[in-house]
Every structure is written in C-alpha cells, then in structure tokens.
C-alpha cells in the first residue's frame, strides 16, 4: 500500500525546506507519492469592480499558469530527478482550508508545510496559515522549521 503526502509550497525558500523534507520522507517510506500543492490566497467574499469581474476567469487561468511555471513545475522536476513519484496542483482559496480539502479528496496521509512566511500585522490579526492548518487539519501535519 502506497502513502500519499501533500507538500504545501509557498513560492519562497521556506517552501523549499518543506519540499526537501517531503523528499526525505518519501525516500524513507519507499512506496510513496508526493502531491505538491500551491494555494493562491483568494476569498469569495471580496469586493471587485465590474471590469475585474469580467476579466476574472482570464486572470484566474493566468494565475494558475504562473504558479505552475514558477513554483510547481520546478518542484516536480526536482522530485523526478530524485526518482520520486509526484503530481502538482494549484488551487485558489484559503491556504489552510484548501490544503486540508486537497488532502481529504486525495486520501493523503500527511501534510508537510514550512513554518509561516507571513509576519507583522496580518499575522497578529488573522493568525498564520500554518497555525490554522495545524488546528484544523484532518490528518497529521508536519511543520518544517
């Protein structure tokens, strides 16, 4: 029986640490698939102009493509080079909620993320995505320092 690990990337060096740890875990486990996930922060409850709405679908596709090209595809190439089976996915939404729902829908066994890259005022008010994920996740979460 193979294990599935979800690796949350954030496009920063901290995400690379999560990826490196996921790679190590996969090597130790042996039969394991990594699901590399990048979440574009988005809320359905924001206010937009009519013009922004009209162009939203087009922008969404561009955002997904950019995230794929800059973050997910290089990570998948890195994993392929190491001989690890991996898939990539880009989603919009709240980072913690989305990582958890990807995990549930894929039947994954664990989520690996790095320590939050957020800071300052926003973190004080809303808390970090990592902390929210740890509190709400349906599977074990490993936070890489």
């Amino acid at each position, binding site marked *: 029986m193979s294990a599935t690990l979800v690796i949350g990337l954030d496009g920063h060096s901290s995400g690379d640490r999560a990826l490196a740890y996921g790679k190590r875990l996969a090597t130790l486990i042996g039969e394991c698939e990594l699901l590399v996930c990048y979440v574009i922060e988005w809320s*359905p409850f924001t206010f*937009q102009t*009519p013009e922004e*709405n*009209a*162009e939203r*679908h087009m922008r969404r596709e561009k955002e997904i493509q950019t995230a794929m090209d800059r973050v997910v595809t290089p990570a998948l190439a890195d994993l392929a080079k190491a001989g690890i089976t991996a898939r990539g996915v880009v989603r919009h*939404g709240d980072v913690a909620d989305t990582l958890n729902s990807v995990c549930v829908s894929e039947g994954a066994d664990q989520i690996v993320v790095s320590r939050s890259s957020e800071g300052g005022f926003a973190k004080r008010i809303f808390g970090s995505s990592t902390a929210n994920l740890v509190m709400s996740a349906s599977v074990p979460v490993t936070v890489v320092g």
Partner: protein
Amino acid sequence: MKSLNTLALAAASALTAAPAFAQEAAQTLDERVNEVFATATGPFVSFIFSPFPGTSFPWIVGWLVVAATVFTLYFAFVQFRFFGHAISLVKGDYSDPEDAGEVSHFQALATALSGTVGLGNIAGVAVAVGIGGPGATFWMILAGLLGMASKFTECTLGVKYRNEYPDGSVSGGPMYYISKGFDELGLPGGKILAVLFSIFCILGAFGGGNMFQANQAHAQISGIVGDYPGWITGIVFAAVVFAVIVGGIKSIARVTEKVVPFMGILYVGAALIILIANFDMIGWAFGQIFAGAFTGLGVAGGVVGALIQGFKRAAFSNEAGVGSAAIAHSAVKTKEPITEGFVSLLEPLIDTVVICTMTALVITISQQLITDPETGFYVLSEGGSHIATVDGNTGVALTSAAFGASISWFPYILAIAVVLFAFSTMISWSYYGLKAWTYLFGEGQTTELVFKVLFCVFVVIGAAASLGPVIDFSDAAIFAMAVVNIFALYFLMKLVRAELNSYASRLRSGEIRKFKH
C-alpha cells in the same frame, strides 16, 4: 481616494475665497449650462413622463409596476419562495470548490450593489419623501418587493445569454439576451431592440449613472464648505474618473470598491443608532408612512402623488427592470444561470426595502418636513411642488439635515460617503455604458476612448446643472432602458420559467446538492 477628497475640498475652499467677479462669472456659466441642458433634454423627458390620457399618472410608472407584478405572478412569488435558497447561494453553500478563484455569487452581488446603492438611497429617498411625503415610503417598499421578480428575470437571462470570448473575458446584459433570445424563439426585431436598449443604456450611463451623481456630490460638498460653482467639482471629479477609466489607474477604483461597502455599513449603522435612540417614534413614523400611503396627508397629488414618487424613486434606486444589473451579474461563474437570478433578487431587498426605508424613517423621525399642527397635514412650499422643510432643504441636503439633527457630525461623514458612492456608481455605470457602446460600435481602443471622454464631459455638465433638469433627464434615460428591456422580457420570460422549473425539480430530487454542509 482620501487624497482626492482632500483635493476636492481644498479646491472648493480656495474658491469660496475667490474674488466676487469670478463667482459671478462662474455662476453665469453654471446657469448657461443648465439652460442649454434643460432645453436639449426637455422633449425626451416630457415623452417619458407623459401621463396616461385624462390622468396625472405617468405611463412609465405604470409600465414598471405592471411588469414587476406580472413577473411576480408568472414566477409564483419566486422572491419569497427562493429567498432562503438565495442566501445559501450567496454564502457559497452550492459553489463547486473546483470553481474557486472565479467570480463568486457574493462578488457578483456586491459589484451590482455598489452600482445601485448610493445616491438613490440617500438623495433619491429624500426627493421621494420631500415631494410624496412619508407615504411614498410604503409604495417604495412595495415596488422594491415586486421589483425583486424583475431583477430575477433579467439577471437569469444576463448569465444565460452572455458572450464568453476566447481569452476568457465575458460580456453580458440585455443587448445580448434580447438579440440571442429573440433569435432562439424565432422572433423578429431582436437586433433592433438590442440596439435601442444600447442607445438608452448609454444615455442612462450619462444621466443617472453620471450627471445625477456629480450633481448631488457637488450639492453635498458645497453644503459643507460653502457655495461655489459646480463646474469646479465637475472638473475635479472628471479628472479622477478620467484617471481611472482612461488612464487605467485601477488602484483608485479598487480602493473605492473596498471602502464603499464599509461606508454603506456605516450609513446603515448610523440610521439604526438614530432609530434606536428615537425608538418611541418608530411606531409614529410607520403610522405616517401608512397614513400617507392611503390618504396622502396633504402632499401634492395626494395618494397618487405619493405612489408615483415611491415607485419612481424605487425604480431609480434599485434599477429593477432597467437591465443594468444584468450587465453586472453576467460575470459570475455558474453552470446554472438561474442561480444568479436568485442571488440578484436580494438586490432590491437590500437596496430599497432595507436601506431606502431606513433613510425615509430617519427623515420622518427627524421632523424636517413641516406639518400643520392643527390638521396634521404636511405644509407645501411656496411653489406647491414639494413639502416645506425646516431649512428649505431638498435632495441630499434634506437627508444630511435629518441625520445631522441626531448626530451633529454625521453630515461630514455623509459628505465623504456621498462622494465615494457617487464615484463608485460612476465607475460601475461607465462600464455598463461602455458595454452598450461597444455593442453598438464594436470593440476597439478608439471607440472606447470616445465613450470614456464623453463620459467625463458629462460629469462636468452634471455638476454644473441644477437638480431639476438633471434629475428629470437621469430618470428619463434610465426609464427608457426599462421600456425596451421589459418589453423584451415579456417575450423571454418563458425561457426563464423553463430554467426555473428544471432547476426546482432537480433541487427537490436532490440532484443539485450543497457542497458545504
């Protein structure tokens, strides 16, 4: 936007100190603009507001009310049957997680609301109550409730027949559903009606979506900093609108879109505080509303006068049947066009039944309208056209005085709210007008630029002209859109009923299910 307000107020303050001859010259320019404008738009306004033969009841008001009633009956009170479902849709209970990142039901509703909630709710209600008395509020609420069905019909069609381009952008609205819907039904004349609608939509964008906003924003600013020529406000506003729609400085529009909802909440919050503080008078105020609705309480035109004002201002405020919302709602991501119809029916409820009623209650409770202590009837002003007020205020100044009577500093907040509401409505309508313009003349940078420059010119004219001609033209242009739109909706409503029946049966059978529990 803050710096814009500061700039506008600073410019206005500086001008109040300008030499007297400059003032006179400017006033003359304002008067000249007003005169030319009133003459040019007179025949159009007269036609739209002409009464049924032998009565004083404008046919256009009857047109809107009959349509809203027909849609309410045809869809068997859809606005009440699917109200709870509409709330679930806005909450995202039925949104497919795979569609995250697309335009949500909430976003489409919020965008459409930011185009409608604004001066209609603040100044328009004051005009209705100032002329038709508190009784106009009753008819306004009724029009709002019935109008929910009109909005449902047009927004469903807006999504169903929108254009989706290869680059992923969308264009929708009555011009698209009229031409495509008529073709689908094999009816002739769809293209002609769509073109006619587009022409009126452009006029509506210049009128209610632009000039009325500039006019009342100027009235509000000059009410605080002192009287100064309207064209100054017009030029400042036009420059900022130009920067956004031509210069592409989207950040101004984005900031406004985020600030406006909070100003709306602040406005409703202030109204609630005033109502709570005057809790003992709410019963009396509703008594005035009901008594006025059926007896007139001495207003010009009696009960019919109150009814006309109520229906007119409700239509102007929530734009149900006008077709503008169908343009805004058509960008939503959904596999079921009818779901956007359900969501859109919340718009007249929020706009008219809640916000407009609050404004009307505050004006009534503040007792700005003068009554005869002996008869209890309202005292008419010298011309006899509207009710005499404590300081002779009309329009937005009346609302400002009513709020100011309870919260002395609120007129300053209201001034900022009015400017922001006016600006956000202008941005929304510049988009609606542009969509109609490109439908007529095709997409292209030059054609779009011509419209945008014209739009800015009308900002200046609107600020410089006096309220009477501006409000007449704004109403006439917006109602002209409703003439074409509603005519087409009568033919297309069977398509909406087919969608409604199919959706309702799938909802009952459990085929359509919530994603969130």
